[in-house]
């Protein structure tokens, strides 16, 4: 009978270990996976497989490289991989999905020390990084069941959220939304599948109901005034379902106590509605969860449980009144006061004098009106335009203001300011007798990557040669006066068009084309 096994008490364990928990989460994600394959075709499976495989590979490689205890076995990398895949549109190029996995696993989680040490939710942060870096790919939604008739060229449809935020498109009925029959990321559309998964997690006590209920409850409450039907659309569209059930309840990045989880949920709800209603990004869920992740340390402090039987004894603030007595040595006027002041004066005078002199030498004739730079820009817009001079800016229409106007031998250039998605948009529109000769955007405050896409040449070149009223079409130019809007940035495209129309109107009002 060799030596007995001895260890400290307790000698029994509940059996619920990290791999068991993560396996349960994976099981809970299966309904959503099936829904994604049903709605978006086998490619959804491919994207999920690639993302998950690369996530696991990155974690394995990182731990090997850094000679650390291998943690791939706890399946947390797999969960992050699947969740990230569910946040990507089905048409996402695979290399972007792999970059997403790299960001999620290596940058956001492992660099901080692996599971339990990261403060931001890996999948959510990776989605935001991809959304900001590859806006076009990430907002290229495909219609459900589009994979059934492959020959029809892929039509980019707007997600319900985008429609809510203003771009055209029919709003699917709340039931369709609940089932998931609408555009959106591959795993987030079917609220039914996600709720099924959520029920499984609650049953297996992997998550507690506090965060999902608080989150969905707050969003519902805030959107109720817009009508029940509108509230349902709000609840079942975009990433709210997957965010509230799977992302916000990630252990490492959510508060520990029940009270803390409720505050976290309410916070996420408020921010989601704020960003969806007023922000420039259509989807507010990822930003609100990331922002609340930052507040978790404070929430944990505020909602710390009070130990049993500990009465709150007011911490006595000891007032350290350290008396500081002044150094009463007598003031020697000359050495202590005059000399330093004199030195300072001399230094300041020298510097100011030098600056004044150099300024007079390098003075740039600041004549108002046309510097060479401005002239070169104008001739760019109106080729062969010569001897430019500034004219009185004509009256501007109600939705745009013409701030400056330049005339030349070959045509006019108008500087137009109009309201766009993210704020003011200023353009220079060159108009010649043949019509619009060139458009350039001087200043835009639209969302980087999304709205700012309306400022590149590809889109602006469509205005060349147009004379009459210009209209904006979603995907294909149906009427000859149409130009095609930039996918996902319809509002900015429409703003540019109104500016050009304003310039055209001002030009015709100025008495036909330029002399």
């Amino acid at each position, binding site marked *: 009978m060799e030596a007995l096994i001895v260890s400290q008490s307790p000698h029994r364990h509940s059996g619920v270990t990290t791999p068991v928990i993560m396996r349960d989460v994976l099981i809970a994600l299966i309904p959503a996976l099936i829904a994604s394959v049903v709605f978006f075709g086998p490619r959804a499976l491919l994207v999920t497989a690639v993302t998950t495989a690369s996530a696991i590979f990155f974690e394995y490689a990182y731990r090997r490289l850094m000679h650390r205890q291998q943690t791939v076995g706890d399946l947390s990398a797999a969960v992050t991989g699947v969740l990230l895949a569910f946040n990507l549109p089905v048409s996402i190029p695979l290399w972007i999905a792999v970059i997403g996995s790299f960001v999620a696993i290596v940058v956001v989680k492992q660099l*901080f*020390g692996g599971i339990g040490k990261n403060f931001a939710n890996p999948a959510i942060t990776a989605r935001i990084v991809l959304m900001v870096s590859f806006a076009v790919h990430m907002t290229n939604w495909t219609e459900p069941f589009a994979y059934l008739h492959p020959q029809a060229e892929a039509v980019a449809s707007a997600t319900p959220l985008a429609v809510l935020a203003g771009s055209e498109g029919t709003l699917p009925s709340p039931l369709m939304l609940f089932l998931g029959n609408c555009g959106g990321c591959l795993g987030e559309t079917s609220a039914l599948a996600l709720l099924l998964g959520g029920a499984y997690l609650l049953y297996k006590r992997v998550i507690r109901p506090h965060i999902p209920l608080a989150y969905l409850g707050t969003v519902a409450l805030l959107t109720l005034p817009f009508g029940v039907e509108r509230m349902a659309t709000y609840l079942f569209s975009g990433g709210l379902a997957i965010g509230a059930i799977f992302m916000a309840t990630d252990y490492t990045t959510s508060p520990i106590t029940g009270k803390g989880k409720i505050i976290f949920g309410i916070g996420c709800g408020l921010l989601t509605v704020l960003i969806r209603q007023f*922000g420039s990004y259509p989807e507010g869920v990822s930003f609100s969860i990331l922002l609340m992740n930052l507040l*978790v340390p404070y929430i944990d402090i505020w909602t710390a449980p009070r130990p049993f039987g500990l009465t709150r004894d007011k911490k006595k603030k000891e007032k350290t009144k350290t008396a500081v007595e002044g150094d009463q040595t007598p003031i020697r006027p000359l050495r202590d006061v005059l000399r330093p002041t004199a030195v300072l004066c001399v230094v300041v005078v020298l510097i100011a004098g030098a600056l004044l002199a150099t300024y007079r030498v390098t003075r740039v004739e600041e004549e108002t009106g046309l510097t060479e730079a401005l002239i070169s820009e104008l001739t760019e817009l109106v080729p062969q335009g010569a001897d430019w001079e500034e004219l009185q800016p004509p009256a501007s229409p109600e939705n745009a203001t013409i701030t400056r106007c330049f005339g030349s031998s070959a045509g006019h250039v108008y500087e137009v300011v109009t309201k766009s998605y993210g*704020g003011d948009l200023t353009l220079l529109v060159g108009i010649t007798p043949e019509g619009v000769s060139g458009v350039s955007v001087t200043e835009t405050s639209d969302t980087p990557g999304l709205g700012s896409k309306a400022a590149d040449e590809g889109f602006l070149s469509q205005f060349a040669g147009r004379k009459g009223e210009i209209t904006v079409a979603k995907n294909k130019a149906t009427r000859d006066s149409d130009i095609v809007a930039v996918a996902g940035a319809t509002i900015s495209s429409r703003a540019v068009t109104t500016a050009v129309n304003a310039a055209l109107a001002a030009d015709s009002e100025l008495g036909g084309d330029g002399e």
Partner: protein
Amino acid sequence: MREMMIILVSAVLVDNFVLTKFMGICPFLGVSKKVDSAAGMGVAVTFVMVMATLCTYPVYTLLLVPFGLQYLNTVSFILIIALFVQLVEIILRRFVPPLYQALGIYLPLITTNCAVLGVTLLNITEEYTFAQSVVNALGAGIGFTIALLLFAGVRRRLEAANPPKPFSGMPITLISAAIVSLSFLGFSGVVENLFG
């Protein structure tokens, strides 16, 4: 009034001085180790920003503009700020030692803080009126403090993290700052639409 609100909220949230305009990063990284030192620094910076604006704006409009010396604004502003900060530090050290104990040590740090000079210069380039520039300074200070406190919370979590050897210390803090500034992106566009 609406204009004021836009300036205030955009200075605090959207183009936050630290996370989007990149001003005042040195103290932001240096002082956010402990929550109370972060709060202390935040209050000190807000106080100095507002007072600096109160001093520099009149100097600019009354002294420099009439004589066409706008190009000298940098020199004069920084002189005034340095003078003001050192004065406050000396007075605090002598008359209010506990407050000096809490705030005083940050004051010399503030003179070299890009955010303070940044605010005063920004008020000029944005052509704000006097009231607007004070509001802007206040917003900038509050934004700075919020970013500082938020980051102090994150750094409390960082103490438990164990990044690889070369990444420990400042690199991991910077990567966390990257994630924090990423989250602030969410607010873009909120201000304009919020106030119609």
